[in-house]
């Protein structure tokens, strides 16, 4: 057995154990992290709704209600209790999966969230896929031909779309694709149950509006990362060895250039999930954004807390997935 073989045997013996331990520790750490984030975020959510003027009862009962009626309703829902006590009560129920009942519509919060989530999730996933589908080929191509006509045009477009707010893009798309050409509906939603074609027909314009707003950041980031990877020695080596340009770009350049892109895409995913309020409202989509837009001014505290929990959980889970993706992309990460 050579020295090298012995060393390999040693490494292969110890690696699995430390690897498992490391995994367990990292999963434990992440779970703790999740719990801490959830507690802080929901507490902040509750505290912020508390800072808003007006009590939930006065909103439910309207401007003509008497002070006694308001006090009675606040007591019924427990809104006369101190903030911390209310939060702990809510937390106790939340742990058992009971997020309470909307004080506006009387519907269970979990039921409403599960009804809204698929809409926002579909919108978010499709918007992200579409923006990546535009950004990745465009960025790689532009980077490999730096300062070419194509590079300059697409970079210009990216800067343009980046500086136009999504509601402007949305209104323009409505006009062009809806009102003028009538290719797509101007607003509304068809669930998947009414057929994939119908569903995509309704979701396409909002997805495009979001994707056009997101792709510039992806494009610019990936373009600059690809340009710097192209200057690495191993790319020069591959080129010298006569490998085809396209093959090098796909097999050697894209993978090491996509770390920042994945991080940014993950953040964008979280942001879109929580913040497509403008697009959902413009296109009248029954997702989480419209729900938030309705619940926050109405001080529907259980519903706001439900949305906050859902978004926080999704954020943390996405971060976990991103970490796992790093390991997939770069084997070195698996050992660290």
């Amino acid at each position: 057995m050579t020295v090298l073989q012995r060393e390999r045997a040693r490494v292969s013996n110890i690696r699995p154990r430390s690897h498992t331990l490391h995994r367990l520790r990292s999963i434990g750490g992440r779970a703790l992290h999740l719990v801490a984030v959830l507690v802080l975020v929901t507490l902040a959510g509750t505290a912020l709704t508390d800072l808003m003027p007006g009590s939930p009862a006065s909103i439910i009962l309207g401007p003509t209600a008497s002070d006694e009626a308001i006090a009675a309703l606040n007591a019924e829902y427990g809104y006369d209790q101190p903030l911390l006590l209310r939060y702990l009560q809510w937390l106790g129920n939340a742990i058992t999966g009971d997020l309470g009942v909307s004080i506006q519509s009387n519907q269970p919060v979990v039921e409403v969230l599960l009804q809204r989530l698929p809409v926002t999730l579909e919108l978010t996933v499709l918007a992200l896929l579409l923006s990546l589908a535009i950004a990745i080929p465009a960025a790689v191509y532009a980077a490999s031909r730096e300062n070419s006509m194509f590079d300059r045009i697409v970079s210009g477009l990216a800067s343009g779309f980046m500086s136009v707010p999504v509601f402007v893009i949305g209104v323009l798309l409505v006009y062009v694709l809806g009102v003028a050409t009538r290719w797509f509906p101007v607003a509304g939603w068809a669930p998947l149950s009414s057929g994939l074609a119908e569903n995509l027909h309704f979701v396409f314009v909002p997805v495009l509006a979001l994707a056009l707003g997101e792709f510039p950041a992806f494009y610019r980031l990936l373009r600059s990362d690809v340009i710097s990877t192209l200057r690495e020695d191993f790319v020069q080596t591959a080129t010298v060895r006569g490998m085809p340009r396209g093959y090098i770009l796909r097999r050697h350049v894209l993978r090491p250039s996509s770390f920042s892109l994945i991080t940014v895409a993950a953040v964008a995913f979280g942001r879109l999930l929580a913040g497509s309020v403008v697009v959902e409202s413009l296109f009248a989509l029954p997702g989480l954004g419209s729900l938030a837009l309705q619940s926050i001014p109405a001080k529907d505290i259980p519903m706001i807390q439900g949305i906050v929990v859902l978004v926080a959980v999704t954020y943390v889970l996405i971060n976990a997935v991103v970490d796992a993706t790093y390991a997939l992309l770069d084997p070195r990460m698996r050992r660290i």
Partner: protein
Amino acid sequence: MRTSRRIAAAALAAAMIAGLSACAPESSSPSASPDGEPVAGGDATIILGIEAVRGLDPAFLFNLTPSGDANRMSAIYDVLFWSDAKTGEVTPQLGESLEPNDDGTEWTLTLNEGITFTDGTPLDAEAVVFNYERIQDPATGSPLAGLLEGASFTVADDTSLTIALPEPNLQFDRVLATSLTHIASPTAIENDADFANNPVGAGPFVLEEWVRDDHMTLVRNEDYFKEGEPYLDSITFTPIKDPTQRINTVSTGQAHAAVPGSELSFKESATGSGLEVTSAPTGGGPLLMFNVENAPFDDVRARKAVQLALDINDLTAVVDPGSSAPESFYAPDSAFFPSESMFVQPDKDAAQELFDELAADGKAVSFAITMPASGFFTRTAEYLQSRLSQFDNVSVTIDTVDNATLDERVFRNRDYQLSAQIVPVGDPEPNFAKLLQTGGQTNYMGYSNPEVDAALESARNSTDEGERGDAYATVEQIIVDEVPVLLVRNQEAYTVHATALNGLTLHGDGSLLYDRLWLAAP
């Protein structure tokens, strides 16, 4: 790996193309009617502004704004009586008659015979009393309770009852036809804790499916009390927040009608897109409210100064193009419209003199405008700030608040200086009186003038149009002189619709009556 990626990419592309080529669903249309007579059949989609978040309980009909619950309730519960959105004239529907005694202290309400709710229980006198007593019950917490305060009910037989009022009111039919006109099944209210989300009425349509923020589908009530009505097979209500998008859905054929909301500028864009507009111009409208209990507007000179400083013609042109400055609180074709315009011409010098005079008295006019965060009101606030800032000794700030804060701060606590509300005035009863009489339901200004109270009272209890006219002219003159409120735009309730949709009748503040809607073939 590479193959599966290609498949995924191909699937995505195929899906997008499928989406591109798919067509909008076509609504089924009834057969053509060359003579314009109503035809049966068809499914209509109607776009509203806001979702019925709290469900559809008639005891919680907060306001009659047609972009919200009033339209849905009209389809599900129908109306006992309806008041014409333009004239305020009261017409029977589920009810047969509503007659006062001589002094207006007792009203006899008679119902049509044999009406049943869609759960099979009868809509009889007992059911009406059940609904009204529920509204009165403090435990219900109904915002309508004030309208029935002190009233008592006696059931005479299955179809008639008397309503005894604590004070004479010969115009009570107008109150009933606007705010107390929807009756729900007592059985459903008693047995279903979630009744508001499963409403049961005796209206032309029955709730079939409701996906919040997406659509509410109502189907024809086969047992509706009018033979052959409603004409439509189904109605779908869809809420869309953006008013331009509401009109777009109609102009692109996605929907048959839309309620654009309070801004009149959308009327022009709708007719520009080849759509029909059914409208009901009334008196009243958006108005500035001065809090007469707080400085600086507890001094009539401050209110007068603002009135003289503003050019309302300019304001309407800037804030809501296509609207106009009102000449009176009463609609141009109402019996009460004055022979001479009550419009106060702007007089900047006089306004500046008043502002200076107030400053010299140590009462410089400095105030905040508390406004909801919606287009029309925000623009009005900005307009006021920019125009009034051109004067010396005036300082104006804008406080934009959400509706909940507005409810609490302005409408409940009256902790404001200048704010606004929209008060449509078909007949001066009940809205105009509620606004101006001492302690009136919408008198958030804290305004009180015994002369106004007396005139409103005498108009309320007179059936003589001439007498009522004199009284309302007196009220209007006092309001122009004392300026507790200042009208800033004319009012017009309207619904935008495709030419195929016919039979639109606007009642209340502009909601539709659903038994008579019908669709012609395209």
